[in-house]
Each structure stands twice: as structure tokens, then as C-alpha cells.
């Protein structure tokens, strides 16, 4: 007779086993914001899975949301990849957020974006990889490939769709909608659809701003 304890252990070890509501907790990294950690199904950004972000318009907060994570990773010396961002990430801003710019690599050409992301994930040396999906039609197969590649990664992988793009039906672990605010909407993941208004972490307080300006003069 097998020890029931060992059976439990075997089940826990298999993260890909569907066990109804009783899902094993996947390994994840803290988002850097306690509020967000508590709200996310896994208590942080899950590893080895593709996290899909669907902003309603460009610049809804997709990069800002991840800055604490990226900061932490660059400080650990892990290279972070931004693959085909639609605009230029402002280095001064990233620097002030605490990111070490020499650990940040930007893939500039968008036609090879998914290939480059896949290679980076497979290499297993990168920290987070952030991919902006090239504009145009979404190819379900390439998303699937990216998903498989993200399993090799020891860090969360993000795929940001362009406004209006529909992600293909997939096994994505986590899909978040983003609206200006920033407001997060859990579109896919464990639990019912829910929303979260993040605080205004990046708004510049008018009073401090005025002080800065008068200080400059």
C-alpha cells in the first residue's frame, strides 16, 4: 500500500497536472507592488509561462507596471530584453526607476521580434523578456512557439499585444487587460474576472514638480 503522503508529493511535483481548484502554486517573482501581488492569482508574476498584456491603447502602463521587476533583475545582473517596443523607452526615466541600462537590451527590428524572443528564452540566460507583438495579424502558431520557449525561462515572460489585436485562444496562464489609469483587468487566470486600480505610482505630484521648477531657476 502506497503511502498517501508520497502520492500527495507526486501530485504536487507535477505542475502540469490539472487538479480542479486545488492548483499547485507555481513559482513566481514578486511584482514589487504589494497590492498587485495580492491581486494576482499566483501572488506574483508566474515563471515559465507566457503572460499576455492587452492594453487598450499604446502607453497604458505596460512598461511602468513591470519596471519594479526589471529593476530588480538588472540589479541582480540578469540581462533584460525589450523586443520590438513600439516607441523609444526613455533612458533617463528608466535610470531613475533604478534600472541598470547596461543590462537592458532592445531588439529594434520588429519583423524578427518573435524569433529573437524565442532564441533569448531558449538560451536560458536572460531575465525577463518583454515582447511587443508586431502590428498586423496575430499568428497563433508563433504565439504557441513563444509559449513553449517561455517554459525554458527562469523568469516571467511578457507578450504585449497592440491595441485592437485579439490574442488567439491559448493555454496562456495569465492574460491581463490594461486601461489608462492604470486599471488591470484579469481576463484569464485563476478566479473570476476582476479588476484592480493601481495607485498612481508615477504621477508627479504637482507641488513637488513646482518645487523642482522653482529650484531649477
Amino acid at each position, binding site marked *: 500500500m502506497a503511502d498517501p503522503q508520497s502520492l500527495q508529493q507526486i501530485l504536487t511535483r507535477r505542475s502540469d497536472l490539472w487538479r480542479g481548484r486545488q492548483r499547485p502554486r507555481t513559482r513566481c517573482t514578486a511584482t514589487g507592488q504589494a497590492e498587485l501581488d495580492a491581486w494576482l492569482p499566483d501572488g506574483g508574476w508566474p515563471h515559465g509561462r507566457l503572460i499576455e498584456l492587452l492594453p487598450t491603447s499604446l502607453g497604458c502602463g505596460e512598461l511602468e507596471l513591470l519596471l519594479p521587476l526589471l529593476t530588480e533583475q538588472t540589479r541582480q545582473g540578469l540581462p533584460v530584453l525589450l523586443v520590438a517596443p513600439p516607441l523609444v523607452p526613455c533612458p533617463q526615466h528608466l*535610470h531613475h526607476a533604478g534600472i541598470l541600462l547596461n543590462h537592458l537590451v532592445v531588439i529594434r527590428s520588429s519583423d524578427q521580434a518573435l524569433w529573437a524572443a524565442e532564441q533569448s528564452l531558449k538560451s536560458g540566460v536572460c531575465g525577463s523578456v518583454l515582447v511587443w507583438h508586431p502590428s498586423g495579424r496575430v499568428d497563433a502558431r508563433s504565439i504557441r512557439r513563444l509559449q513553449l520557449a517561455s517554459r525554458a525561462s527562469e523568469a516571467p515572460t511578457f507578450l504585449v499585444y497592440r491595441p485592437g489585436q485579439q490574442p488567439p485562444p491559448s493555454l496562456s496562464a495569465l492574460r491581463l487587460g490594461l486601461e489608462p489609469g492604470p486599471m488591470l483587468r484579469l481576463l484569464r487566470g485563476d478566479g473570476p474576472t476582476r479588476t484592480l486600480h493601481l495607485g498612481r505610482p508615477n504621477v508627479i505630484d504637482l507641488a513637488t514638480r513646482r518645487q523642482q521648477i522653482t529650484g531649477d531657476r
Partner: protein
Amino acid sequence: MSQTGRGSLWAGLYCPDLPLRAVWDIQSGAGAIAVHDHRRGQARIFQACRIATHHGIRAGMTLSQALALLPQLQSRPRNPSMEQHALEQIALAAYDHSHQISLAPPDTVLLEIAGSQRLHGGLRPLLSGLTQTLGQQGFTIHCGIASVPAAARLLARKDQHATTPEQLKPMLDALPVDTLDLSARQHQSITGCGLHRLKDLVRMGAPERARRFGSALNIELDQLYGRQPTPLAAWHPPERYRQRLELPVASDRSDALLFAANRALDHLGNWLHARDRALSALHITLEREDAGNPIALGLSLAQPGFDRTRLLEMLALKLERIRLPAPIAALALKAETTLEHRPPQADLWDGHNRGDAWPALLDRLRARLGDSGLSSIATHADQRPELSWRWVPPGTTQPCLETRPRPTWLLPDPRPCQRHEFHLEDGPERIEAGWWDGQNCRRDYWIARDRKGRQVWVFQEYEPRSGWFLHGLFEGA
């Protein structure tokens, strides 16, 4: 050079099919091949491969005879410089088996092995290691051992080993006279005297020999039997690496090119090892069959080193990107190297070589995306926001002096917009700069909110244009 000293032992590496191997460097694996040279105004077969020999092709046949016998025979003229090059490749591959190497053209390499046999665990492991290495690179090698370099060269033709001087003499005595490099006239006069083995020659007195066959033969015999030292020039690998490889058949298929490149990397690897250098960049020129403009490919490595699978992979990615306008006839390789040699290091605990994987990834991405395809982003000390950032090679760092708030995203170029599209929230920040380099500008930057509720960075310009422009996006608020 103490070559006949009691302790020294020489190995002769003899490559019997060197002329064939030199011009047919890349074995096509298909069909009968041969080399011919020109004697008395006629092209005659010099050497033929096994398949050709099987079909009756013999050395000395005229080319037309051979072609009549075997129409599909492919023959190329002998090329002494390529033979020399092939000989150097053998020397290079053998370089770490000996401290003293010299070339004995046309087809033998001599190396001193007494000093290194203990290092390699004895004579037998050393020789088997050597023939194996050379065999992998496509050379058939016969090995001769003797305490005298000239004798080692001769014994190599017969694959005979004489590890002590006592063994050497009877072995030399038994050699037929035609193993010596004799002119046809000398050969005729020696055999005409009824002398068939070296011992017959040696038995004859030296003055008599000189009178009959010329004094050069005496010197040769003295060197063979170790009574006189053999003059040898030590060989060293060249300072710079350059190589040219001709493809057996001009091709525009990338797998054929990769096969040739793979062979070339063998030699490059040997050269780097012998010179103890690390590869930092490899320039490959593809020479077109139609003599059009050659195609240059550059592979630069993020970290100096030599990893042939990675190099081949990078080359494959490069070849994927280009379309070959014409079949390629030859490859020319040029290596850029550095003395900075860092052997690969693996993590003590998990055995992963992280230090190496990151440069490898950068190389792979760069091979497909091009040098401008991936960058880091750095700050640049300039008041004008559009000039305050730069694309830099990955890993570059610059100090940041900016303390004023900057948006998360910048538009690569400011985009004209209308004032009424925004609700101004904060500002202005006056920027007036560029009078020193002719790109003078005067603007007021504002933090504003657009109709979608996003915070944006806009400016009103007074000089050189006038109007409102959108320059960035703040996220998060």
C-alpha cells in the same frame, strides 16, 4: 640543432595522396578524381583516387587516354602552392605534438618526438593520436620513426619504425634504391650497375660513388645514416590567419558552403590553438563563379573564443539572410584575433556556463538581425530631449545627469499635434539649446493629458518651427 643526438627521435608524417588532396581539398565524395601535370608538352595523370585506379587509371597516362578510359573522370592540374598549403595544415595539426617541426616538401612533415612522447603517454599513443587527428581532417598519413630526420622521412614512405639507432641501420640497408629522391638518369645508372638496395650502395666506396653517381648522393647517404646533420628549418604557424578554399563544384546552396566552412574551421581551430589566440571576428568572402563582386560576410563575436558550432550556426543565419546572385566558387577566410584568451568557465555548482551563453546569444541575434538590430539604450548629455538618448552596443553604460521628470516613452521624432487635443496639466519646462551646433531650438514642454486619459509630453516650439508637438508618453497615471 642537436638532431642526431642520442636522445632525439624523429617522426616523418608522409601523406601519399597530398597532390590529390591539395587540389581536391573538399572531398566531393562523388566519382573519380585525379591530378595531372604537364610533361613534355602533354598532360599526364600524376595521381588518381582509388575509384579511378579501380577503373584502370594509372599515373603517367596521358589525360586523353584516361578520359577515354573513364569519361566521367574529373582531373585538375597540380598546384604546388596548394600542396605547400596542405603540408602546412598537416604541420599545424601536429603542432602540439612536438616542440620542433619542419616541412620536408613536397609531401612530408618532420617532427621531433623524443621530447614529447612522455607527455603523450608513450610513442604509440602519440602516433595514434596524431594519425587520428589528421585522419579526421581528411589526411591519410604514413608514419616513419628514426633517430635521424632524413631517415625518418624515408622510412615514412614504407611505414617503418626504428626507435633506436641500432634498429635503424638494417632497416635502411634493406630499402630499395628507388626510395631515394633520384633523378631518372641517376636511377638508371645505379640500377644499371646492379645495385638494388641501399646496402649495395653503401658497400661501394665513397670516392667511387661520387665518381659514378655524383657527390650529392654521398651527402644524402651520410645524412641518412646520421654521419652528417640534416639541415632543417623550423616551421612556425603563420602570424595571421588567411585561408582560401575552393569548392569542388560551384554552388549556391548554403549547405555546401557550410560544409566547406566547417572544413576551414578545422584549420582555424588548429591555428588558434597553436598560436594560443582567441578569435574575435571572422571575415568570410564568398567568391563568385562568374567573377562578379565577391560577397563579404563578417561574423563578430561578443566574446573572443572559438566555438565552431556557434560559428557555423551564425554563418548559417547570415547565409539565410542573403540571396546569392551566382554560384560560389571559393571561400576566403580571414581571422581577427586577440591575445586575450579566456578559457570557458562553468559554474561550480550547476555546471552551467552562464558567462558564455550570454555572448553566444548576442552573437546569434546579431547574426540574423544585423549589428543595428539590437542595442542598449544610453543617455546622452544634451538639453534637447530628441538628442538626449543614443542607441549603443549592448552592455555600454553612460552616466545620467538628468534630474527633471522624463516620460516613459519617447517618440523617435516629435509629431505635430493640435493644442486643443490636450489638457495641459503641468509646466512649462523651457528648453533653449543648440545655438552652438546650428540646431537651435526654443520650446516649452508641458505635461498634458490626452482624450484617452493618458499623460503625454507635449511642447510648444517657437524656434525653428512654431506649433505644438507630441514628444512622449507618460505611463502609469
